[in-house]
């Protein structure tokens, strides 16, 4: 199957691959997996006290489209508030990368990873506030 130029670019030069300190109270981790294909994706975001995402890293074991989707969202997340991040839709990711219909689920996986990371940081902040 032919990948779009944008997918190839992210696949060959993935941005922000790696991890952040998961024990850092300002770091949220989202881990998701797609039973349709067995791909797994980990997305970590570092949020400052103003609620802005300062850094984002990912690790994805999966196809080119899954890697490109997660690489792209790490670029998009930086500078956004957690609520803006939560509002990112898979359709925007699919459109930007020109994903074919059979690869739309890769963009769904990336959206789910963002939502999981945001939920994790919110839970951490709640514990911090009540501690």
């Amino acid at each position, binding site marked *: 199957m032919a990948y779009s130029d944008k997918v190839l670019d992210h696949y060959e030069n993935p941005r922000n691959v790696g991890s952040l300190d998961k024990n850092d109270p300002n770091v949220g981790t989202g*881990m998701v*997996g797609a*039973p*349709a294909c067995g791909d*797994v994706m980990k997305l970590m975001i570092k949020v400052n006290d103003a609620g802005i995402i300062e850094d984002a890293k990912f*690790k994805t*074991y999966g196809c080119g489209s899954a890697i490109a989707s997660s690489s792209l969202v790490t670029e998009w997340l930086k500078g956004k508030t957690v609520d803006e991040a939560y509002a990112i839709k898979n359709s925007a990711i699919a459109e930007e990368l020109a994903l074919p219909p059979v690869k*739309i*689920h890769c963009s*769904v996986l990336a959206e789910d990873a963002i939502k999981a990371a945001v939920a994790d940081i919110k839970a951490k902040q709640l514990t911090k506030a009540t501690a």
Partner: protein
Amino acid sequence: MNYFELFKLPQTFGLDVATLESNYRKIQSESHPDRFVAASSAEKLASMQTATLANEAYLTLKSAGLRAAYLLSLQGIVAIDEKNNQMPADFLMQQMDWREEIEDAENAHDVSTLENLLAEIEIAGKNLQESLKSQFQNNHLSEATESARKLIFMDKVRADILKSIEKLD
């Protein structure tokens, strides 16, 4: 006709792979285009459809994860839904760890670590298949659904590690 009926196999998770293979080959040869050179176009079409169905059925039943999901689908349960990517956190953590270890070992050309990992992954996969067998026997279908989803990941990580070992050999 469902996939099990096609291969004259009992509709259970713990199927006999040897019977699956031999019945598949039988259907394949019976529906081979060479046998239909002089046949009518309706017969040609029917044999082609049988061959296609047999292929799809064989690939589904051969893979434990897909077989489990197929059995569930016969009961009206959608185990593999592209919109549902929620898996237990500890399970995903383990999957992520395995894939990182495979990547590191491959980069280090460390075949013995890969082989140890393969053994570990195969044991975990077998255990999951054993659980599935009893979950199906006892009709614990929501547990079976979770196990079926997990098995897809186990099949993937096993395929990945076999690919890595092959690459280094």
